[in-house]
């Protein structure tokens, strides 16, 4: 390990990821805890937890069978459906909310739970698929010999459940952090306010953060209680790949169930991505006024002209944040995995996502909005957005990379050390190429999350210039073909890097490890 590199990366991590959390924690006074047990606060927390658990349950119901079918069976089109299964997660959940409330009468808690579950099911599917793939063929064959497919599945279930649980924990975290979906759903039906939009409202009202932080404490603890086991499960999954004697299992034969399986996966995709995208395309092409190709094309081209600056702003800031995260993740992920105390520091690494996103945004305001020239320059400019994105999302590439390093044989680095390669050279020439799919996967994940980020950025003035913020405002004030076209353009640019990699990349993107 290169000590200067690790110290520099850790200092950046502390400033960008931990300092906003620390600033918020410092603002809490003893008096702020007084309202913690008030009925209203408990109701709020209860609703937020119900939302998280409900969304995680939906994600498991859809994602577990989806992951199994695309990864381990002879279902037709499994190879195509596997990458397509990621698409719902790439869509900003707000877009799912506006389309589902437009095509159905579902409102309130049910709508929020469904939308966030549909949005996060790919996380469960991804972890489940990976867990199924890690089962050695010989173990499965032994079970098949004694009792056929049923016995094989019974043997495999305990091995894959931890992976699925890890995905479900992440689905919970994404759901309880979401601000835009409950906010929008509440605006078109009965109010279903959760923690995030309550903080948004109170911050806009009185700008007082101490009570908000104190109120969030149970939620933070609950999130950590779910994230830490998820991390342990993820690590166990990563280590399962170390075995050099591994034999890839053959696809399980579904027999007559092949076509019903395809229908199930197709239906899941239609409900979670196809329907929302079709609805947006229909609205962009004229909607109730009558759909036409010309109308659709014209709406896209007008919107592209009108919102070019916002789109460019989002693309640049997201790409810069993702590009800065990659080297930081490499250095810190490697240190986390290879150092003796690294694993204990993982709890610090996940802190920025354990804290509700909206509080993380307020923490950034408190940290950077100061009467110091250079800080004011950062706060008012694009740099603020980049810092916010890095602070919020660095944890993902960091964990992905550390997982990939765990599966990298340490002897590869030792052989280079023995050959005289310095720590930085080993990192760049031996480790980085070995974990490249994870670095690219981490880059893509940060880019995607940054492009759709609203939850932490909603209160930060510099983020007003992002295209998703623009879409959020326009959705609330008008629903026309231009809004739908803007949503479609955002989706296109979010999907673009993953699409390019799928077309030209020789290896699969690793967004989990």
């Amino acid at each position, binding site marked *: 390990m290169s000590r200067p590199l690790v110290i520099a990366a850790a200092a950046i991590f502390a400033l960008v990821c931990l300092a906003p959390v620390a600033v918020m924690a410092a603002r809490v006074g003893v008096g702020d805890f007084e309202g913690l047990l008030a009925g209203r606060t408990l109701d709020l927390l209860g609703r937020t937890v119900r939302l998280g658990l409900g969304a995680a349950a939906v994600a498991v119901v859809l994602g577990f069978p989806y992951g199994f079918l695309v990864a381990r069976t002879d279902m037709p089109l499994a190879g195509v459906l596997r990458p397509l299964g990621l698409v719902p997660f790439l869509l900003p959940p707000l877009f799912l909310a506006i389309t589902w409330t437009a095509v159905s009468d579902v409102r309130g808690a049910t709508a929020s739970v469904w939308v966030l579950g549909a949005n996060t099911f790919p996380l469960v599917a991804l972890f489940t698929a990976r867990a199924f793939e890690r089962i050695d063929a010989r173990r499965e064959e032994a079970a098949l010999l004694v009792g056929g497919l049923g016995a094989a599945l019974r043997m495999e279930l305990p091995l894959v459940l931890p992976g699925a649980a890890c995905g479900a924990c992440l689905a919970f975290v994404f759901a309880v952090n979401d601000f835009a979906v409950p906010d929008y759903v509440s605006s078109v039906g009965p109010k279903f306010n959760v923690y995030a939009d309550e903080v948004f409202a109170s911050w806009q009202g009185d700008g007082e953060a101490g009570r908000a932080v104190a109120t969030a404490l149970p939620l933070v603890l609950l999130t950590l209680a779910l994230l830490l086991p998820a991390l342990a499960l993820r690590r166990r999954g990563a280590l399962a790949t170390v075995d050099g004697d591994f034999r890839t299992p053959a696809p399980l034969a579904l027999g007559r169930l092949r076509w019903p399986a395809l229908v199930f996966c197709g239906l899941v995709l239609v409900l979670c991505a196809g329907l929302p995208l079709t609805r947006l395309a229909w609205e962009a092409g004229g909607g109730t006024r009558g759909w036409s190709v010309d109308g659709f094309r014209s709406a896209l081209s007008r919107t592209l002209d009108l919102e070019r600056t916002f789109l460019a702003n989002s693309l640049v800031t997201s790409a810069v944040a993702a590009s800065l995260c990659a080297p930081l993740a490499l250095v810190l992920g490697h240190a986390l995995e290879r150092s003796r105390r690294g694993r204990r520091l993982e709890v610090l690494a996940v802190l920025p996502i354990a804290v509700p996103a909206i509080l993380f945004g307020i923490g950034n305001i408190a940290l950077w909005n100061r009467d110091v020239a250079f800080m004011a320059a950062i706060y008012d400019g694009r740099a603020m957005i980049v810092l916010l994105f890095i602070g919020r999302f660095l944890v993902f590439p960091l964990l992905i990379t550390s997982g990939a390093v765990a599966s990298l044989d340490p002897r590869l680095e*030792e*052989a*280079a*050390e023995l*050959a005289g390669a310095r720590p930085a050279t080993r990192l760049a020439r*031996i480790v980085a190429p070995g974990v490249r799919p994870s670095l690219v996967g981490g880059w893509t994940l940060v880019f995607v999350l940054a492009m759709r980020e609203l939850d932490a950025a909603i209160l930060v003035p510099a983020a007003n210039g992002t295209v998703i913020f623009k879409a959020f405002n326009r959705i609330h004030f008008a629903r026309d073909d231009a809004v739908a076209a803007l949503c479609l353009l955002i989706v296109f640019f979010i999907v673009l890097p993953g699409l390019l990699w799928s077309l030209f990349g020789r290896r699969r993107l690793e967004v989990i490890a």
Partner: protein
Amino acid sequence: MTRAIELESLTVRAGGRELLGPLDLAVERGEHVLVVGPSGSGKTTLLRAICGLARPHSGRVLLFGERVSDGPRLLVPPAGRGVGMLFQGGALWPHMSVRRTLEFVLARAGTPRAEHRRRTGELLELVHLEGFEDRLPSTLSGGEAQRLALARALAPHPRLLLLDEPLGPLDSELRASLLARLAEVQRSLELTVLHVTHDPGEANSLADRTLVMAEGAFVAGEERKA
């Protein structure tokens, strides 16, 4: 003349458990010493402590008369000890071709860039891998991969070669061929070899001496050649 390896009361610990020692060992220059023992007996830890990849808990390691570690202090870093190691399973860099693997090591060893091609050619000739320059490790057979690992270990001109189960994944024909290559290389380069394996039959013909290891200590030794 000083000895190639001298271990004085060497111990290695991990997680509060003694993995090795206390061990004393003296290996003469040019000697080929075979260390046999069951899995988990401390053979690999012994090699790692000698080359500096594992930090000793106590004791001393001297290589060619130079003290390279004293207690837990590593006085000479692994790359400065003049040691080549053939790792168990090869540990080849999967993203580097045969040529790039050797050039990477040559560059670290300070070989001028202009000489890389010539030296790579020499090394490949030595291990009979000519014509494999642009192949990736994943496209090599077990025997070819082990010979590349041997070439990599020899690239920085080591005086001491450490072999960690070098014949493990190979069939009997390939074992015989690699052993012959090893004998040839040792003779031509006048190397000292410390060779660990779980298979007592392995390399018996090459070894000057066989030591038996169990639970981190030498439990028996045998002089084989006059």
